[in-house]
């Protein structure tokens, strides 16, 4: 049994499948990163995992509890942090957390202790009696973290948790992930920021238009594309176009002089620029994902400072 098990999960709105037969599982103590562009279905998956919306098909199990059959047990094992977390603005942080603590059926003595621990952890203990309405966005997000871990969940879901918040908030979330990892908690992070996912996750799932197109460790994913995706650095002083190099349909040209291609074009480049100028290197994870998300269609990405195109 894995703490998070998702099987053929599907959510259809009208005729459009927002999540399409997604299957994955996250082992105990692992950090799983769900990566995808905006609208790829990350938040919908998180909402399906928390029971906020009902699936059109498939199954979710949290700590062995089927979310459809035993929603209360499954939800009790979950903590949830999402972008722009909201609280009752007329209540103080302490009152808000007390209310949510009661919803998780924490005993009064345990709740008192957890309130102190969590508010100190996110650095809001001194602000605990202030109305949440007067909090900044970053403070609210940190309060959101406190709320998510208040009941000491076995599984934590972070949905775009670092977007739109201050450095302190981002740092608190990273610390939280590192801290929970030491406690053998299972964490699922959904984000469109590769850097964040790469930094924190043990394994990654790449979502595209509601489908999980790749799952594995960063190295594993990169290795799986070795021989399929090639990256060439061409050391010439000017953009490749200036040399009259026609970029074929399957090429992905980055920074003018880096070529990523789905087929071997090394010899053609060597023939044009010479063996000294052409170097074959491993594509970065970002490039791998961009290539995957682009579905190997022609794509150009330029650095504005270079002004190459």
């Amino acid at each position, binding site marked *: 049994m894995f703490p998070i098990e998702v099987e053929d999960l599907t959510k259809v709105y009208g005729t459009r499948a927002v999540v399409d037969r997604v299957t994955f599982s996250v082992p105990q103590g692992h950090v799983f990163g769900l990566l995808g562009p905006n609208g790829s279905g990350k938040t919908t998956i998180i*909402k399906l995992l928390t*029971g906020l919306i009902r699936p059109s098909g498939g199954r979710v199990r949290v700590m062995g509890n089927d979310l459809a059959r035993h929603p209360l047990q499954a939800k009790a094992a979950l903590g949830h942090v999402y972008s722009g*977390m909201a609280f009752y603005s007329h209540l103080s942080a302490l009152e808000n957390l007390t209310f949510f603590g009661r*919803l998780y059926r924490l005993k009064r003595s345990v709740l008192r202790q957890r309130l102190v621990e969590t508010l100190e952890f996110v650095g809001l203990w001194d602000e605990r009696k202030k109305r949440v309405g007067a909090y900044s966005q970053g403070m609210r997000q940190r309060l959101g973290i406190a709320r998510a871990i208040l009941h000491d969940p076995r599984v934590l879901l972070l949905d775009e948790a670092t977007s739109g918040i201050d450095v302190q908030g981002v740092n608190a979330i990273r610390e939280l992930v590192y801290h929970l990892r030491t406690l053998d908690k299972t964490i699922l992070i959904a984000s469109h920021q590769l850097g964040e996912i790469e930094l924190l996750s043990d394994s990654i799932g790449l979502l595209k238009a509601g489908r999980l197109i790749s799952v594995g460790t960063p190295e594993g994913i990169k290795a799986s594309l070795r021989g399929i995706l090639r990256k060439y650095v061409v050391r010439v002083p000017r953009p490749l176009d200036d040399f009259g190099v026609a970029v074929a349909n399957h090429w992905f040209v980055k920074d003018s002089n880096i070529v990523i291609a789905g087929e071997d074009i090394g010899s053609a480049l060597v023939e044009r620029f010479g063996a000294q100028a052409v170097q074959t290197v491993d594509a970065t994870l970002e490039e791998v994902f961009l290539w995957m998300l682009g579905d190997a269609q022609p794509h150009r990405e330029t650095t504005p400072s270079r002004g190459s195109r």
Partner: protein
Amino acid sequence: MSLFLYLVGHFASKRVRSGTALLFLLLVAVSVFAGFVSMAGEQGRTASFFQSYYGPSQPMQALDIGSAHTQVWVATNQNLRITERSSQGIFLPLRMATPWLLFILPLVGLLLASREVSQDIESGVAQTLHAAPVSPVALGMARVLGDSLATALLIGLGLGGAILVGSRFVPLGVNSAELVRGLLLMLILGLYTSVFLLVGTLVSTISRNSLRALWVCVGIGLAVFGAHLMVENLSTAQPPPYPNVPWPPASVNEYLYRVSGIQDPMARRAMESRAPAEFLPYLASLRTHAATVQRMLDARYQDDRWLGLVSPADGIRQVAAELLQDRHASATEIFAPLPPAETPVSIWVSLRQTFPELLGLVLVWLGLFALNVRALSLLEV
């Protein structure tokens, strides 16, 4: 169970602590206070009515209630029957305020509830709430019950506060029976308002948007008012043809004229033995007339009750009229002798009388409650 009660308390306190609740409370208080002002005005109007039509005021109590010539005097002097009903205690301000409350309470209830769920969805609190391990049914029930309790508290505070303040300006003699009826009326008004809270919450849940819900609720509020106007117009469009009081024969008229000139009650009573022979048959015809009018009033009352199906405000108004022992207190001139002094009916008789309306109110409440719980449990946030 303790978590459910905690949630009920949470939603009730949320409602009470919201700024709009104060507005609600003030509106209720102002309505009842306006009842006091109307009451003072009504008493003044009644006094001037007697003054202008009958010369110096002749309080009924000063005459021999029930004596033959008093009955004739009352009938022939076109006394308004409504002025004979009790105007003591807390009934009159409540009587004056109830028609207003029957529109203010639903409208404010609808407006308050229109933000109930949609605001939580818009702010994102609903996500945090629904992600918690609490059954959506329990969450929905707690929300609705908490809101209803808070509303009942606000109505109670508004009514109680206004009566307390108003009684310092207008003397009120309150007896325990009136107090029980007054409290019962408040409870029924609370249930009636709760129906509209439930409607507002349902609209809020389905629309998921505060502004859209607000407009729908304003529309429902206007529809309630429109239905009342329609019913009122229907009710008064064709007033029943109340028969005129039979005119006394000349000899009786002359006799009454002589009697009305005698101020001394003993002398008046002595005059009764010298009444003309036509007097007693005339009195009998007056009683027949009174019975006819009473039958027509009862038939109209029953007809008006059916209109409660179209206009909920008018349905509850019938209940209020019964509880305030004010059933026929409409501005209908009834030229008939007064019935013998009525002993107040028991509260159970009043409740039995309005059982269909009360049952309807409870059934509608239960139906809406079930619908709300269903809608909230199906809510996706």
